[in-house]
């Protein structure tokens, strides 16, 4: 992974995502009511609350699926509100979905390459006419290694062409994208089924594939919407590890999750919503003890006890 963060503590108080008095109404339903919170760089922030509290809506407001009725979302100093989803992605926010939304007919690898494409530049015209040409770096040149004479001379010809005219950006990006996608699949641990169609993967693999695809867009912030739904405890533990690794690679994470063991175990701070309003915010320990949160959400914890 390319991001490299030496000292998280220094960065910890730099705000990355600011939700500023965001309100979102659907007709009579107030899904978000004047919500404020901040996510700091390098942090894993949990977003919890009862069903229908407005968590997913909050994600939708951040990623441009819905436009807030009032208030503003800022990311990295820039206003996000009003931008379209792909622009927001370009700013550096990626997400996964509560109901998995992969490209079901594409292979796992292709799904991730689509993510990589977000950072690529070849346009349609560039693809058609293979322009612009770029002087390749040595490792990007075609290799000549076959023993068969005819094949060999063919390859030499290609090498000569590449040296003389350069290689199209299209080709370079294609190669880079594929390599990076493969690496990401390995990172989330599903490289063994890279060439299988997304739809045929088991649920858990699909969830991880969604994460890989989101990471491929090189976000600064990764938003995960109930990534552990449908996982058994052992799998949740793996996910816990994965999220930590993601953070250690320099991403910030915003996590919606109903599994308290996971949330309490992995997040740095937690924001609690109820009926669209923020009712609490603080470290996991603080939130766990907060009577309002217990009343509204946690109830009497059986397994946490």
């Amino acid at each position, binding site marked *: 992974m390319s991001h490299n963060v030496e000292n998280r503590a220094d960065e910890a108080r730099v705000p990355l995502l600011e939700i500023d008095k965001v309100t979102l109404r659907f007709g009579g339903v107030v899904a978000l009511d004047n919500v404020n919170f901040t996510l700091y760089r390098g942090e894993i922030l949990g977003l919890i609350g*009862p*069903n229908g509290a407005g968590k997913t809506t909050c994600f939708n407001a951040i990623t441009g699926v819905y436009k807030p009725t009032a208030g503003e979302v800022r990311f990295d100093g820039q206003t996000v509100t009003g931008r379209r989803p792909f622009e927001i992605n370009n700013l550096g926010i990626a997400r996964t979905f509560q109901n998995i939304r992969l490209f079901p007919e594409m292979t796992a690898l292709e799904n991730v390459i689509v993510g990589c494409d977000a950072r690529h530049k070849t346009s349609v015209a560039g693809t058609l006419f293979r322009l612009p040409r770029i002087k390749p770096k040595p490792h990007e040149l075609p290799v000549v290694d076959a023993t068969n004479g005819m094949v060999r001379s063919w390859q030499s010809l290609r090498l000569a062409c590449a040296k003389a005219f350069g290689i199209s950006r299209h080709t370079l990006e294609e190669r880079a994208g594929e390599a990076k996608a493969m690496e990401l699949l390995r990172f989330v641990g599903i490289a063994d089924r890279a060439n299988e169609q997304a739809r045929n993967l088991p649920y*858990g*693999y699909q969830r991880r594939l969604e994460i890989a695809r989101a990471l491929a867009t090189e976000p600064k912030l990764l938003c995960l919407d109930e990534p552990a739904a*449908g*996982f058994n405890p052992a799998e949740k533990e793996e996910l816990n590890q994965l999220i930590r690794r993601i953070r250690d690679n320099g991403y910030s994470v915003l996590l919606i999750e109903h599994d308290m063991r996971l949330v309490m175990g992995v997040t740095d701070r937690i924001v609690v919503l109820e009926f669209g309003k923020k009712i609490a915010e603080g470290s996991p320990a603080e939130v766990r003890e907060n009577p309002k949160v217990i009343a509204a*959400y*946690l*109830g009497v914890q059986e397994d946490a006890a």
Partner: protein
Amino acid sequence: MLLEIKDLVVRYGRIDALHGISIEVNEGEIVALIGANGAGKTTTMRAISGIRPAAQGSIQFAGEDITKLRADLRVRRGICQSPEGRGVFPGMTVLENLDMGAYTRKDKSGVAADLDRVFGLFPRLAERRKQVAGTMSGGEQQMVAVGRALMARPKLLLLDEPSMGLAPMVIQQIFDIIVEINRQGTTVLLVEQNAQQALSRAHRAYVLETGLITKTGTGQELLHDPSIKDAYLGVA
């Protein structure tokens, strides 16, 4: 015996998702089916309710062979499923969704009573009865799905991960409801990732691993089985 599955094989294309499993569910029981992602739990449920054909093996329900029976006719025999991923009717209101659960029922007064019961269980649904189900939150949709299955008053209720996406408090509630309706006479076959909860409520349970039943026993037995503990309950 209410439900008897023998050597069931189900395929997706060339891939066998189930390699010949046998499951029995007795009248009045809660039976849990647990297993890792992709083990074939959902596939089993779909085969029982008839939206996935059985390639081999047989399914008997209340003494009748239903292996080749159409899905909607199985509902009429008394099997109702709350599907994985909720499957609400997105354009219908909450109320209409619940009514759909009672599609095959003729007893109007009974339906009305059951509707009140569901609204009692999930007050959020009562508040939002006129909201279009597709715009409900994930957890709210899950409530709709479970509520709808309850509306059918089936002999055999199939629940595929009913707790998915629900807040901790509501999960407690769901399991209480399961026990409660079981007590009222409904047989339940339950698929759950929340193995702890499921096993502690179930009379019996099966463990499914990559398309095969690898263990079976009472809920309590499995709950304390060390290998199960490792694989499915997580180290507390």
